[in-house]
């Protein structure tokens, strides 16, 4: 089962990010990883949380524009060249990475990075074949 990422539309004005985190806090949802992409007008907050389905519904209830997307979490050696190895592999397989960001904390054997690609399954199998550990959603949420 792939990892579910929650994305939230944010206008570039003060207090919006805080409002999202308040909603999640009230629902006792823990943020495991996040990144924000921003333009001059708006931002997109991307989150990995311990309970993505509930996060989606509480954020919707509070009136946010929310999406859920499949991403992959890859464990890699926490040393120079660790990320380069994964990216080389994806490039050779002609799998385009839309964006990526690091996990807060680490996996059992190294650093964890979240990848957003169009072809989730293909990327997952290519990485597994090459010996990288790709984490299942449930394993990641409870880390």
């Amino acid at each position, binding site marked *: 089962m792939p990892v579910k*990422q929650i*994305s939230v*539309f*944010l*206008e570039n004005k003060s207090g*919006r990010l805080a409002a999202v985190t308040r909603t999640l806090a009230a629902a006792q949802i823990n943020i495991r990883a996040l990144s924000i*992409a921003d*333009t001059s*007008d*708006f931002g*997109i907050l*991307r989150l990995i949380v311990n309970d993505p389905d509930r996060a989606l519904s509480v954020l*919707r209830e509070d*009136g*946010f*524009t*929310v*999406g859920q*997307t499949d991403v992959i979490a890859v464990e890699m050696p926490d040393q120079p060249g660790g990320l380069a190895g994964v990216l080389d592999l994806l490039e050779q397989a002609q799998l385009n990475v*839309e*964006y990526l960001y690091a996990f807060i904390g680490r996996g059992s054997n190294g650093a964890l990075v979240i990848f*957003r690609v169009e072809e989730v399954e293909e990327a997952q199998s290519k990485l597994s074949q090459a010996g990288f550990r790709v984490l299942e959603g449930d394993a990641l949420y409870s880390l």
Partner: protein
Amino acid sequence: MYWNQKAECMPRDELRELQLERLKQTVSRVYHDVPHYRRQFQEIGVRPEDINSLEDLRLLPFTTKQDLRDNYPYDMFAVPLSEVVRIHASSGTTGKPTVVGYTRRDLATWAELMARALVCGGASRQDVIQNAFGYGLFTGGLGIHYGAECLGASVIPISGGNTKRQVMIMKDFGTTVLTCTPSYALHIAEVMAEMGVKPEETKLRCGIFGAEPWSENMRRNLEAKLGIDAYDIYGLSEVIGPGVAMECQGKHGLHIFEDHFIAEIIDPQTGEPVAPGEPGELVITTITKEAFPLIRYRTRDVTAMIEGECPNCGRTHMRIGRITGRTDDMLIIRGVNVFPSQVESVLLSIGYTEPQYLLIVDREGNLDTLEIQVEVSSQFFSDKVRGLEELEAVIRREIESTLGISAKVRLVEPKTIQRSEGKAVRVVDRRQI
């Protein structure tokens, strides 16, 4: 100074006789030649022979923009297309424009009315007229153009835009009269100042401005900045274009050319005439137009009749005050008519099911700006920046092609657009006119 003294200074009783005669002809013609009018008249049981006085005009039904839309594009024409030599259009509320046609004689009438208007504002055949109204489907550019040629002035058909070039040409070609929207005139004045060109380095002495509402304050501003006398001209494409009414040099009210149009001012709620001098909606009946006659057209423009003879010019035609507002939600942005519902129809066509949007109109320097805020619905939300930027671009492109003016599109969070009593506020107009 008059262009057609006999017509413009005709004694009131003679004028009313002429109006009645022409009204009868028009009513009879539309009854026989335009199915829409025949249907409308029959529904309320009015026949052309029931019109025996100018007061009987009130027996006739109003014509609205909706009627024009329902008869898109040519069904309101009273002549076959072979008689039509020109077609203009103005923006409609659903993306479909309002189409108007002119016979050769209509064009001659229009040119005569515009020549009258130009003379009314003090222009003559000695003038060099820089026409910075847009040329094209919009009636402003070509309307002024043919009037100025009819007058015998020298016309520079420069159209709008490229303001530095406007200033250079104004200076080098010896422009004496500028015609454009008042906001564009202010912009020209500003660019002129930036370029270090002083008004006294030009021969400019007169400005004839229209196609959008403006104020006495703005007149003083324009007159000071450009060193001119500024006059207000009124018109709308449905009726004929610019040249329906024009201010004389008394700068107090616009004379409606009553030998071609009958004007009424009504209460927009009841449709009944307001007391003389009270503000209301201007309703116009054309009495000489061939291709596209209009009976009691609701202009949606709010104005008031100015009572009494004109103390300034000797013209006998009635005067109206400046247009002070609209009875519908139409906005005029950079001289272009914009209805908020046009934005809604664009969003619906893109696939929005319940579009929430807000138009923010402002003025930067002297140019109108339009920002359209659109709430992002989950349906169109993307976790990729590129996805949202593409959404913005699609909306912007569609809106520009529908509205005919450029706009900035800003995506906003749901529920950020204010609702009042369940009804959303669709327009914030921050312009200080």
